[in-house]
């Protein structure tokens, strides 16, 4: 009986410790839910934001497009923004700093494939975070 109780307690503590230290979702190694071009993605999202939220929020998406803005250095979260059909809107992708070497070589006007998590539609377009460059 004592052993059983002890076992339950240890299992509970182990589960607690595991949950507490549970790692962040590894987006880089996960299979994507969708793969789409930046232009088509923005068009679909902006046409019906509510339905797109249901379909895409928190999903892992590979988006391909042309780089229109870069903010790589002197920032907590380097950003690569992709062109859409609307000049004032982009797909803005935030990266962890560990990817800095992959990002430094990027050029405005070049084509790129980015995998990341979709956070929704903001003032200046769609926002992705936890991104990496798909090679």
């Amino acid at each position: 009986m004592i052993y059983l109780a002890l076992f339950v307690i240890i299992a509970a503590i182990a589960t607690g410790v595991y949950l507490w230290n549970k790692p962040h979702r590894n987006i880089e190694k996960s299979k994507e839910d969708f793969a789409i071009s930046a232009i088509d993605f923005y068009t679909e999202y902006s046409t019906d934001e509510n339905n797109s939220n249901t379909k895409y929020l928190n999903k892992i998406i590979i988006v391909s497009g042309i780089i229109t803005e870069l903010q790589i250095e002197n920032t907590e979260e380097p950003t690569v923004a992709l062109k859409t059909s609307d000049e004032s809107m982009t797909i803005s992708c935030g990266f962890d700093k560990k990817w800095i070497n992959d990002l430094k070589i990027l050029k405005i006007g070049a084509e790129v494939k980015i995998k990341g998590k979709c956070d929704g539609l903001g003032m200046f377009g769609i926002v992705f975070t936890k991104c990496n460059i798909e090679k």
Partner: protein
Amino acid sequence: MNYKTITIIILTVFLSSFTLKTEKDKYVAKNGKVSFYSHTDVEDIRAENNKVSSILEPKTGKLAIELLIKSFHFEKALMEEHFNENYMESDKYPKSKFEGNIDNINEVDFSKNGTYNVKISGNLTIKDKTNKINTTGTLKVDGNKVTGNTVFKIILADYNVSIPAMVKSKISKEIEITAELDYQKMK
């Protein structure tokens, strides 16, 4: 051409140049930073969002800030999960926004470098709740760049964020919010 036509032409030209001018004259921040901090004796919780958008109109002082809840980063994956799923319900309420004014915008000289103290007031929407916010901050003018800073506190219950009894000791009722927005002048 009679008088009436001329008046209409002049008026149209005048009005369109006016709208063009006000439209042109604004400051935009696309990768601003908002972080929050919750302190209790048991635990300190911090999260950061580096994808904050904002538009500031220097003529009128009109200020709009918007962020996506899912762009907040936490150190612990579990905290991030609870924050999104339980407290903020970010699938249902993906964004949060502030719409208001810099009340003393006439005291800020955008053509002169320096740090100006500002008074900010407006409406903050988190989830489905909107409340009035009054705070102070600074605007630092450096050529075409302007950096806005502010720190203020909100009470979670004001925004329908309910903390379960089990974790009440870990999450403060009052949360400190810090914003740092780097604006670029738009041409």
